[in-house]
């Protein structure tokens, strides 16, 4: 590797990020009420779990998983039914298990049955649509006056911050477990499977099993996110998963603006930062008067632009070149 770059170059390179961070903080401070600021952070923490799940499939395994919308709703369904029947904690735990099972199904379709990853995800998602409705029995369930893991913690953490604290604790536990897992032998094998499958098989690792394991973990996290969200908002909706894949992708892409290094720690921090930043950008846009119907369009545009960015840059470069030629 070459010698370290001079400091001023580093600062110049970091400048765009710093500007984004400062602008975001200013926006948050001056344009939102405190309750909105906290509410947005709460949502950011809950949806960080979604981003972490998508980080596993899309980034670590490097395989697109389109079942996300379905497994998010699966988490919602399992969680809301159990909370409705008086067992919110059991609801969260069962949602994680159910998400893992759904992930295994997608993984098995891909590895053992040779289904294209994109199609496998769609198959699982479509099947889950019926399964979720069966679990929920009706499209909407309200948890009004029912216990949730949030309301249960109200007495301990106080009226103002209990939702923040509960979300933060769950996220902290999940990301810590994920981080530690990715440093184990199994976790390293999982990472290597996404990095270089040839090498993995040549190192006597069963890459199929690793992919299934990865999908299980990814969807357990996505389902957990749905499970938390339904108890957070005290309502379960069988459509709440729609567009969650793109929301999660948008979060990851935003996070990667801040963290470019490809280490596990940075990857996890990046997913969380991105998910929180996404919620603030969204809240700000709604503050400016954006209709809440447009939130999905908004995330779709972010993802499309971010993915198209290299092509756009190239186009601009070419146009600029042509202009400078014509002007000569």
């Amino acid at each position: 590797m070459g010698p370290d770059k001079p400091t001023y170059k580093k600062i110049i390179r970091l400048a765009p990020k710093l500007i984004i961070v400062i602008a975001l903080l200013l926006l948050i401070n001056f344009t939102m009420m405190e309750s909105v600021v906290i509410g947005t952070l709460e949502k950011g923490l809950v949806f960080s779990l979604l981003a972490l799940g998508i980080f596993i499939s899309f980034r670590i395994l490097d395989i697109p998983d389109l079942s996300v919308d379905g497994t998010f709703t699966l988490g919602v369904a399992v969680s809301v039914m159990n909370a409705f029947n008086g067992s919110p904690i059991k609801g969260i735990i069962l949602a994680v298990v159910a998400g893992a099972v759904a992930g295994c199904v997608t993984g098995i379709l891909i590895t053992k049955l040779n289904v294209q990853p994109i199609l496998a995800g769609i198959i699982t998602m479509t099947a889950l649509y019926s399964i979720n409705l069966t679990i929920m029995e009706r499209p909407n369930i309200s948890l009004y006056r029912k216990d949730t893991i949030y309301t249960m913690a109200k007495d301990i953490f106080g009226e103002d911050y209990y939702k923040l604290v509960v979300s933060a604790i769950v996220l902290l536990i999940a990301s810590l477990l994920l981080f530690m897992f990715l440093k184990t032998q199994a976790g390293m094998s999982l990472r290597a499977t996404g990095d270089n499958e040839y090498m993995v098989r040549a190192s006597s690792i069963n890459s199929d099993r690793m992919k299934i394991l990865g999908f299980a973990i990814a969807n357990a996290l996505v389902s957990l996110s749905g499970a938390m969200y339904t108890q957070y908002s005290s309502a379960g909706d069988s459509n709440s998963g729609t567009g969650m894949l793109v929301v999660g992708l948008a979060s990851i892409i935003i996070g990667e603006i801040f963290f470019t290094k490809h280490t596990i720690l940075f990857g996890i921090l990046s997913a969380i930062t991105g998910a929180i930043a996404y919620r603030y950008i969204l809240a700000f846009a709604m503050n400016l008067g954006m209709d809440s119907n447009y939130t999905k369009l908004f995330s779709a545009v972010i993802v499309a632009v971010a993915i198209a960015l290299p092509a756009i840059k190239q186009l601009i470069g070419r146009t600029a070149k042509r202009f400078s030629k014509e002007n000569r």
Partner: protein
Amino acid sequence: MLKLENVSITFNKGTVNEKKALDNVSLTVEDGDFITVIGSNGAGKSTLMNAVSGTYEIDKGKIFLDDKNITRLKEYQRARFIGRLFQDPLRGTAPNMTIEENLGLAYSRGKRRSLNIGIKRKDLNLFREKLSELGLGLEDRMKTPVGLLSGGQRQALTLLMATIVTPKLLLLDEHTAALDPKTAAKVMEITEKIVKENNITTLMITHNVSNALAYGNRTIVLSQGRLAFALEGEQRKNMTVEGLMKLYSDNAGDAFTDKMLLD
């Protein structure tokens, strides 16, 4: 000991592109043998290795390693006893993982991937020692992602990974062909050292005829999916590159490619 009995592989069976890549190949590799494999492009050399490693299923025949029938074992299952290097230096390592993580993965070859910590502290000392034996200074860069290394460095690291748990068999498929001559020579030197020190049974494909004679104790020549002839003992010791070329065109029925002549 590796034993192939009448191994055949046909690609695209029943189509116009049908290709018999291995045609009834039988071969016995004794423990400690270092066999070099040559043959023109498309002769079936890589297919032979892929058959042994389990990358391709064979249509006919049997493969034994130490008298154990491994014909039906999957690639990753055979990898417990077989180390492998490809021509492409990018294939043997995980680029986004560090040198020590790559070695850590290789070091648990053949074991169950558990929830134990991936790299133990005492393993790090071993990795450092093994890396310094390569003489490339990699021991001071163990936290560097492998993607930042040069092709030669990556190939040397792959060699270490393939042999850090001594395999029963080492397969080398033109593993220096993509490197510049100086680096190729260095990697070849490291290869010979590791193979000799650990007495590893080795099959090495090379397109370099003088290397084929200079290294190892036997040379086999493949042509059109068949074993054309083998060289060993006195005959091999006295063989020159020109002599081998002559023998080849008399026996194999096709000529070496220009690429091979030039090397």
